[in-house]
């Protein structure tokens, strides 16, 4: 009981809505980056940024509502993101080896 009060005193008094706005801004910056840049590696980084915006939101909800699941979910998102980056970078390296560029506009092989 004593411990809980101790922790509670350290808790932020900021309303949860602020975290909502912050993660929205970060997410939009990520989207903007994806649209703005042509370098595939930067785009990958922007995607990471978007993932982190979502993670932040999840953690804030978890912590404000006192629910464990949000944090576990974030943990799994990190797992997937790590795997994604590993594969994505490997792909980029092999693409670069073939066309000597990471410009996504050069990657127009998806046209049938």
């Amino acid at each position, binding site marked *: 009981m004593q411990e809980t009060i101790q922790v509670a005193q350290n808790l932020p008094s900021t309303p*949860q809505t602020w975290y909502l706005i912050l993660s929205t801004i970060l997410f939009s910056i990520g989207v903007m980056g994806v649209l*703005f840049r042509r370098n595939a590696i*930067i785009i990958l980084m922007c995607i990471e940024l978007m993932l982190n915006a979502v993670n932040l939101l999840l953690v804030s909800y978890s912590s404000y*509502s006192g629910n464990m699941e949000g944090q576990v979910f974030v943990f799994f998102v990190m797992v997937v993101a*790590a795997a994604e980056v590993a*594969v994505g970078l490997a792909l980029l390296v092999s693409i670069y080896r073939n066309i000597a560029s990471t410009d996504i506009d050069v990657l127009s092989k998806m046209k049938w």
Partner: protein
Amino acid sequence: MKSEIIFYLLSALSIISALVVVFTKNPIYSVLSLIVCFFSIAGHYVMLNSQFLAIVHIIVYAGAIMVLMLFTVMLLNLNKESEPHKSSLIKVAAIITGGLLMLTILASLKTTQLTAYSTPADLGLGSVQSVGMSLFTEYLLPFEISSILFMSAMIGAVVLAKKER
């Protein structure tokens, strides 16, 4: 009051570093500022009493992912000069679209009925102990599956990046 100031500082840091990631021309700077951004987000996690996640975040993102990114950037010898050039029309369109997305999300959030939490109801949720208990009991199966995912990702990365003979 103190925590609010810290929140503002951390928020400002994360937004500015995110913007640098997008707008700087040198890929190296992008990577570095993204690391800054991730650190500030880790700070947010600490603020939210999720110590375990904060640590994992720094290890995974700043320690592993971003180092990998940096390696790749350097390996491919990407720099300011090799940066592909986009027309200004597309740049303006991208900024407008991104801003529009933000506005739309915020606007749609306004109409959504949200549970307004003013203060966090913390019961020691973010500690290593509680997250670990949860992971190894309730979420044991996804946890194990994620290790398989990691393994396949590892094999895939090796296969893809390997030089063809």
